[in-house]
């Protein structure tokens, strides 16, 4: 296992401690519950929380900050957070305006957040839950019934976060999340597996000349295992699956994301973006905003996912709104 890790059992608290140390001005944490929250929470605004297994950074605890999540918690690598962590996260974020609980569509996450929401509601916390399921690859998969929630999650957080920041009420913020989820589609491809630190070896075997098309962010099988192809062909595979699913059609303005799964370097992401932008132009789409980088990883898996979100004036404004998280360049 070639990783920067001490005792694998401490991997999650240690990386979270690093995130907190690096963002002491912006964030504070409660590591007893693997939780990170904004230092200042405006009680008059809707709070947004999310939390899932670790290994998808910057999702989810690194997506906390003004204009994004209010608080988030993480489970062990690839495992839903314990119920109490979810509950404490809701409690820590809760405002008078209520809490929007974003849940990626995985069995473990849904159960944990369901229980936490019940507990929080029983205490009088006002909340709504929203399930994200943007992955077009397969209808049912490991750990989920129905489509999986993957990188499109970023757009839900960003748009809902901006709406909350602007003072929208819980129903309105929920409606934004709903609109994004209804208009966002993703598919990914893996060239290699990844190694969860506590497992100590790869989660699946894949041949030196193979790729997994439609892979999940925990290495779940996708649509097919094929021979590896040139970047343009892979990009077309992803683009066609994503484009045809909504479908996105000529005249649409879209946000397009090329998300690295963790082990793919920046230059390769831009090779993919280069082709995706051409394909979008051929379909008659206008890429109003683009996102190239790591947004939702599968630890160090080599691979990418392609996400498209159909925009309207409201969503475009929400995506353009300022936001701040632990991810910074300068």
């Amino acid at each position, binding site marked *: 296992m070639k990783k920067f890790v001490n005792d694998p059992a401490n991997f999650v608290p240690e990386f979270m401690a690093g995130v907190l140390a690096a963002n002491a001005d912006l964030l504070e944490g409660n590591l007893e519950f693997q939780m990170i929250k904004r230092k200042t929470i405006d009680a008059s605004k809707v709070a947004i929380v999310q939390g899932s*297994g670790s290994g998808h950074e910057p999702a989810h605890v690194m997506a906390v900050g003004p204009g994004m999540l209010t608080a988030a918690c993480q*489970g*062990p*690598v*690839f*495992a*839903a*957070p*314990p*119920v*109490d*962590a979810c*509950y404490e996260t809701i409690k820590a974020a809760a405002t008078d305006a209520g809490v929007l609980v974003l849940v990626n569509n995985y*069995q*473990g996450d849904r*159960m*944990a957040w*369901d*229980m936490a929401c019940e507990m929080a509601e029983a205490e009088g916390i006002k909340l709504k839950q929203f399930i994200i399921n943007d992955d077009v690859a*397969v209808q*049912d*998969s*490991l*750990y*989920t*019934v129905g489509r999986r929630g993957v990188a499109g999650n970023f757009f839900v957080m960003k748009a809902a976060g901006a709406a909350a920041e602007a003072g929208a009420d819980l129903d309105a913020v929920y409606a934004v999340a709903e609109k994004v989820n209804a208009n966002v589609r993703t598919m990914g491809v893996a060239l290699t597996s990844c190694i*969860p630190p*506590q*497992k100590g070896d790869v*989660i*699946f075997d894949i041949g030196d000349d193979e790729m997994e098309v439609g892979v999940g962010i*925990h*290495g*779940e*099988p*996708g649509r097919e295992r094929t021979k590896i192809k040139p970047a343009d062909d892979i990009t077309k595979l992803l683009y066609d699956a994503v484009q045809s699913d909504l479908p996105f059609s000529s005249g649409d303005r879209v946000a397009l994301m090329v998300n690295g799964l963790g082990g793919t370097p920046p230059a390769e992401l831009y090779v993919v973006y280069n082709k995706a932008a051409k394909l979008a132009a051929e379909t008659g789409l206008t890429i109003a905003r683009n996102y190239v980088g790591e947004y939702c990883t599968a630890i160090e898996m080599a691979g990418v996912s392609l996400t498209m979100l159909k925009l309207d004036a409201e969503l475009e404004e929400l995506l353009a709104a300022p936001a701040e998280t632990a991810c910074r360049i300068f």
Partner: protein
Amino acid sequence: MSTLTIADVEQAIDITCDTVIRNEKYFSDLDGLAGDGDFGTSLATGFKVIKADLPTIDKSAVGAMLLKISMICSKHVGGSSGPIWGTGFMRAGMASKGMTEIDYATLVAMVGSALEGIMARGGAKRGDKTLLDALIPIHETMQAMDGSDLKAVLAAVAGVADKAIDETRNLVAHRGRASQVGERSANTPDPGIVGIATILNDWCKHYGVDFVPNAPELNR
């Protein structure tokens, strides 16, 4: 004796802790065959805390003790197992609320209540290749017995769980392990079922109940 005291339940849980902790790696390896390999670690993380806290937690009633155990699951068990086992203990605790002794009817009701809770929580049904495929027939078997001989009940349910391993081995998982898994799920037993069966098998050994399991997973 066909009623159980708080001490009896405490002891059964203590044995369970040992089983889960000892099998941490094995259960995770099983989960790794078609899943993500965290089942053993998730469960063991919680049961290590249960083992440590068991001597000192609230034992004013069986229900109180089980609710406390449910809370430990909620705090320390990640993945699907946290909500599933936490719900199971919570429902069993609610069905034995305030009781310092439980009779056989209550015991059966506790199991029934736990499995209903788990079904409601995760939406799985019989045949979805989850630990419910052990718990449901266990509950049925218990209902069909009169409970006058608890050792006989234990032998019977251990046998049911043992059989569930083999009966579900070639099932395609409908929940949590979908058809897309393809060859990865073929011929792999469900780790949750193996977990239940291993616990019952260890109970048999501990309580001197004669039971020879069939599944290779219980004959390692």
